[in-house]
């Protein structure tokens, strides 16, 4: 019955279509020019795999790509856990003072320019004698990402009736079960969204990463940023295309996983959201 419409709100659809075109225009350009047979970035003259050839033989770039994937994956998982804990805690804590103070502290990373967080992290690590390495990059990235997870998860939490959880408790669930079977499935879309966002943020980060890298292979964006001020070689388009492919694969996998595993939770989703997953 809600599916019946008098008239499609045309403006919204038009805006959406234009948005997708605008979003993908540079993507198309990047992919197209990665196959360009000349160095030009503005005119496509012929098809060639030369830039991919360059890439494959450039061990440094592949190492960087691996480093980026590793860093982003670990940082995403840890900050999802910590950020959700923080969001839940903030939502349920009884002292308003704690809530406001902690809420403010959590938002501080968003208010701080990344270069400052980077420099401060550098000073902190050297101050406590921690040698810069991939680990320090991951530590810094997690710290910066928790804020994003907290904001998104809280956005979804605010409005989730505590009654549903109370109801589950009344029905005999332990605390933990209520968390797992009721709360987390409700939060699932927010978690997926936050996870994807954080992954993209960390994967793409260059400022924070530059200041906290040691001599391990540097994350890819650090390399890209180092060259971008002075103009880049078209091989960068090949890098961009590969990054796109790798991440598209990751996302598709992330989206398909629930389908493969989670038939059990969908019925609860019906209760909480009114819509099957």
């Amino acid at each position, binding site marked *: 019955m809600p599916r019946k419409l008098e008239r499609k709100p045309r403006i919204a659809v038009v805006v959406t279509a234009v948005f997708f075109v605008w979003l993908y225009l540079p993507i198309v350009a990047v992919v197209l020019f990665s196959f360009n047979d000349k*160095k*030009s*970035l*503005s*005119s496509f003259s012929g098809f060639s795999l030369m830039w991919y050839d*360059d890439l494959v*033989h*450039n*061990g*440094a770039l592949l*190492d960087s790509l691996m480093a980026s994937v590793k860093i982003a994956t670990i940082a995403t998982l840890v900050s999802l856990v910590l950020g959700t804990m923080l969001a839940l805690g903030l939502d349920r*804590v*009884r*002292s308003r*003072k*704690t809530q406001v*103070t902690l809420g403010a502290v959590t938002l501080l990373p968003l208010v701080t320019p990344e270069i400052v967080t980077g*420099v401060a992290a*550098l*000073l*902190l*690590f*050297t*101050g*406590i*004698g921690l*040698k*810069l390495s991939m680990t320090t990059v991951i530590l810094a990235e997690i710290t910066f990402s928790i804020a994003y997870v907290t904001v998104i998860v809280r956005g979804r939490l605010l409005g989730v009736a505590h009654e549903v959880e109370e109801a589950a408790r009344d029905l005999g669930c332990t605390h933990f079960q209520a968390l797992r079977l009721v709360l987390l499935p409700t939060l699932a879309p927010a978690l997926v969204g936050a996870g994807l966002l954080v992954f993209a943020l960390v994967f793409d980060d260059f400022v924070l990463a*530059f*200041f906290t*890298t*040691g*001599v*391990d*292979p*540097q994350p890819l964006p*650090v*390399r890209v*940023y*180092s*060259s*971008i*001020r*002075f*103009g*880049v*070689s078209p091989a960068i388009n090949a890098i961009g295309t590969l990054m796109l492919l790798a991440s598209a694969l990751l996302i598709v996998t992330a989206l398909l996983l629930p389908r493969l595993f989670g038939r059990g939770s969908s019925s609860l989703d019906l209760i909480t959201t009114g819509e099957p997953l």
Partner: protein
Amino acid sequence: MTGVVRPSRRSLLTGGMALGASLALPGCAYIRDDAPTDAPLPPSAKAEIDGDLIYFNWADYLAPKVVKGFQEEYGVKVIESNFDSMEGMYAKLAAGNQYDIVFPIAKWVVKLRREGKLRAIDPAQLQNAEQVFYPGSYFNEPWYDAGSQVSVPFTVYKTGIGWRTDKVSSMTGSWDDLWNDEARGHVFTLDDQDEALAMAALLLGYDVNTAKASELEEIKKLLISQKEYLRAYSSDDINNLVGGDAWVHHMWSGDFLYMKDGVAEDPTKFDFQAPSEGVPINSDAYAIPANAQHPGTAMVFIDYLLRPENAIKNMGYLYYPFPVRDALPAFAELTADAPACNVEISDLENENVFRLLGADEVQRRAAVWTEVKAS
């Protein structure tokens, strides 16, 4: 009840950390008070492989084939990190990162040497040393490294103006051309403090390193007056010109050659001039940090790069001259079309080189540059 106790416990913890941080940090590797500067020079390593090469340089500064050749010939890996500025490079070195080879610009060789951050490089260890350290070579006593103890020259370059011959016909061969009326709204200045201030200083007849308040004030006014002609401050000179946004661009000589030879579809549309008031000349060098873990491999790497055939390959990639004796004729060929881009080693003896300045001088210059960019 618990809500009241926990915040105070947490704030104690936070306070404790803050106190701890402020007490611990002065002892930290980075924050220092005026440090002693005449430490004895760590001796040069022998040129023999002692592990993978940890390499720290600008991005895309060596031909990939050359690097790959090194890896294959010696069976080691080259682990690359990049910086986008000398200050960035310095920050990582000061933080204690252990790179095996770095590529400082001349004045930074002075600074790193002074702070004891470099180890000696003994030319006698390098088989190809005489390619750059031949009798009578300028590089035996370069201005930035007395006795050439800690560095081996890498490239030399100058800064001038690149322009569109089909759009602008009123060039006068002076730095004034960056205020050209025909190119109003299509002028670009390099996004580089030293370069921009030097350009204005040369136009006014001052030293490129000036930090005198009165001269800086004039430089500031001059640069602000450029804004009505200026489209942007950008170091992406090649793409700005090729993309059609720039008609007159403050530009590095090597970039112009690269553009003309490798990127532009119609090279005749472009030309380069080295203004008559004088041009900044710059050079950079190989250096091995004192805390390098594999200095031996670094020495071998430098030796490998000094081979004329590798220098020629690098020049073909970068279009900047490598002062490797047997490779120089190849560079002369490259600049045959654009003689203004040619850099003679003797140019380094002129005065227009960027020298190391004291912190307060740098800050005066930085304040000027900030005001220019922000206004």
